[in-house]
């Protein structure tokens, strides 16, 4: 994978031990690294140019603080600027004082609109709202069926008129239906379209004029490259966006498109979507995205996610153990059970800084494996769970028999556990709280 910006900057400024102002040459070297890192993260090159110019300006004037190395100083500036550019705070959905609140999803083909509609409905259910989904994609084969299936899964009503009606009428009728039925949020799914498809863009503009959605959200695939600026600009011009939904963030794309889109439209990213399960949808946090684009991982997301599911005491205890690297099989078991509440283990691990995806391969936990693992752990004595090192050959055989599995499975689990312990140790020593740069060894 790509080098993270922090590594790059350390490389560029590694020789610099002293403090004081950054010199012109330092700054040129730094600018080059930032430029490359952002380009590799798919930030549009024009956006990169402006951004780097701003960093240069700030870095030139900056007094380097006593406590920071030059590399740290630059990362701090970059991080601040990036966060400012992404919007300083999380940006929420606008709810109308006179319900129903209308949300319309727009975007290119395959960006994930229909799934995002389902996820938003689920998100709103969680907030005590009663959404109605409206099937406005009459073009793609089976798009209406897809939305209906999602609605059925969530027990949320779906308004549709098949595939022969005009999407503008469908949207209007959908909103009227919500009003009649007392649903307080309407989510309109629309067909994917190219930003240069005049008739279809005009169709969106007509829906906008007739229905006046309170939130028009552009759905953008986080794997999008340089063209994100053209797409966003056109949608912004034609329908005047209110915000952006960034999808497929559970992959390993840096997501530089978020920055491009934000820069050209001036509109905030409101939501991020991860995974295909309907609960992978949350408000966007600019600071986290900034560190993802820079390759610093998403430590904050991880901590918050863990905190939502673990109760506070448990979390504190786990943290203590992580720090001391006393991660035992009992913790592992707890974790596995929490994982089901939080989403996939992989999606959680993928937010940990500095873990290459390749390392995650052996740590996959699927649901069937879960039951097997649970059985194996339950066949261990409390002593063995606390000190897995004592589990030698004869103990392994006993555990295998006791759990109705085989010795290979026990060996595999012990190996996986050892790896996990090692990783936890890394995370434990790299935790972010006081000095966020400590984890980069600075």
């Amino acid at each position: 994978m790509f080098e993270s910006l922090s590594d790059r900057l350390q490389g560029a400024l590694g020789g610099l031990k002293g403090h004081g102002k950054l010199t012109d040459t330092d700054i040129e070297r730094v600018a080059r690294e930032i430029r490359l890192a952002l380009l590799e993260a798919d930030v549009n090159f024009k956006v990169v140019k402006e951004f780097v110019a701003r960093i240069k300006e700030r870095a030139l004037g900056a007094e380097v603080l006593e406590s920071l190395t030059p590399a740290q100083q630059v990362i701090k500036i970059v991080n601040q600027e990036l966060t400012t550019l992404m919007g300083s705070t999380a940006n929420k959905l606008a709810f109308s004082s006179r319900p129903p609140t209308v949300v319309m999803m727009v975007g290119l083909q395959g960006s994930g609109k229909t799934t995002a509609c389902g996820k938003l409905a689920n998100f709103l259910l969680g907030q005590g709202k009663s959404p109605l989904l409206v099937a406005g994609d009459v073009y793609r084969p089976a798009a209406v069926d897809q939305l209906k299936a999602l609605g059925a899964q969530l027990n949320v009503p779906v308004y549709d008129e098949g595939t022969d009606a005009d999407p503008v009428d469908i949207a209007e009728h959908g909103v009227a239906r919500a009003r009649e039925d007392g649903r307080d949020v309407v989510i309109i799914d629309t067909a994917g379209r190219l930003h240069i498809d005049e008739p279809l863009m005009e169709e969106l503009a007509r829906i906008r004029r007739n229905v006046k959605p309170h939130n028009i959200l552009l759905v953008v695939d986080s794997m999008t490259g340089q063209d994100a600026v053209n797409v966003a600009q056109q949608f912004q011009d034609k329908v005047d966006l209110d915000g952006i939904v960034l999808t497929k963030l559970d992959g390993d794309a840096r997501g530089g498109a978020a920055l491009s889109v934000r820069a050209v439209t001036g509109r905030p990213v409101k939501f991020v979507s991860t995974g295909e399960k309907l609960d992978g949808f949350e408000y966007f946090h600019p600071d986290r995205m900034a560190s993802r684009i820079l390759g610093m991982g998403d430590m904050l997301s991880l901590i918050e996610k863990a905190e939502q599911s673990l109760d506070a005491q448990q979390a504190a205890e786990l943290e203590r153990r992580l720090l001391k690297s006393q991660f035992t099989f009992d913790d592992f078991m707890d974790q596995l059970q929490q994982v089901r509440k939080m989403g996939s283990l992989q999606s959680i691990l993928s937010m940990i800084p500095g873990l290459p995806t390749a390392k995650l391969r052996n740590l996959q936990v699927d649901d069937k494996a879960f039951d097997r693992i649970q059985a194996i752990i339950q066949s261990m004595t409390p002593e063995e769970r606390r000190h897995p090192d004592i589990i030698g050959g004869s103990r392994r055989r006993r555990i295998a028999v006791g759990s109705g599995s085989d010795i290979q499975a026990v060996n595999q689990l012990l190996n996986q556990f050892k790896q996990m312990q090692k990783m936890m140790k890394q995370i434990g020593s790299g935790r972010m709280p006081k000095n966020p740069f400590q984890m980069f060894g600075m």
Partner: protein
Amino acid sequence: MSYNWSEVFVGVSPTAEVEPAAAREEGRKGWFRSLKEGLSRSTKALAQQLSAILVDRIDEDAWERIEEALIGADIGVSSTVAIVEKLEQMADAGEVRGPAELVAALRRVTAELFSTKDTRIDVAHSPAVILMTGVNGTGKTTTIGKIAWHLKNVGKQPLLVAADTFRAAAVEQLVEWGRRVDVDVIHQDRGSDPGAVVFDGLSAAMARGSDVVIIDTAGRLHTQVNLMRELEKMVRVIRKQVTDAPHETLITIDATTGQNGLVQARLFREAVGVTGVVLTKMDGTAKGGIAVAVSHELDLPIKLIGVGEKMTDLQPFDAAGFTELLFSDEILKAS
């Protein structure tokens, strides 16, 4: 220069070439022209950009802006550097003098980066098995519809298999494509085991004597290890019935994809041995430059190009033609 779909497939005899009624209605153009129509919007911006640069001299600024144009096409930092360095060497050696020659050289150098492997689709088996893979929403199902339509036109009898049993209404989507192109679709309920659907599909193909089996799979991120393993398992299921299959394992890559496209292709190739790439959505403004990096770095041929949502919106790929259009002559004329 016009192309002939019977030449796009290996295993279709040229005599089997029937000018299909539907194709004639659509108006068959030379592949350059029709590709150009699909691509014109993509390339125009790049052409203008380059034409502004290449006025006269090749100065420092021009080099930097060529770099930017390449980056802006999603060709990626390392391929861009490789291309520009090569051009600089050529300029230093006096092989490239002035902007006109630079454009020609740019095309040549870029075209040479593409894999030289066969870009045709191998259907010379009975049955031939094509496995369609790729990340979510990149155009797998649509491309299958298009390929099936072309196969029918050249006299082959395809059978579609709906092994995306995961996404809501994925089965219905493929069934609808089957209806459109008048090809049978083997399917089971949502949630059933994709391996079982594949098994069924191949059995049906052999019982009916179908020529080509095209298997649709659920979109998956290359980072989802369990799902990648599921795909590997599907290949094993296929091999139990047809030992040398799949004969083609294609990955769809969306032309709007940035540098992640390279990782996608790499991990799908590691898992299931991809034989070629279908670059989709080239009818937008994205330039699809990631295809250059994918083809070059992974030695994977680009086989087909998607230029729209209709069954006719599919084109064979040709490296020289692709780069010719990416950096067109208009670069100079427009200035």
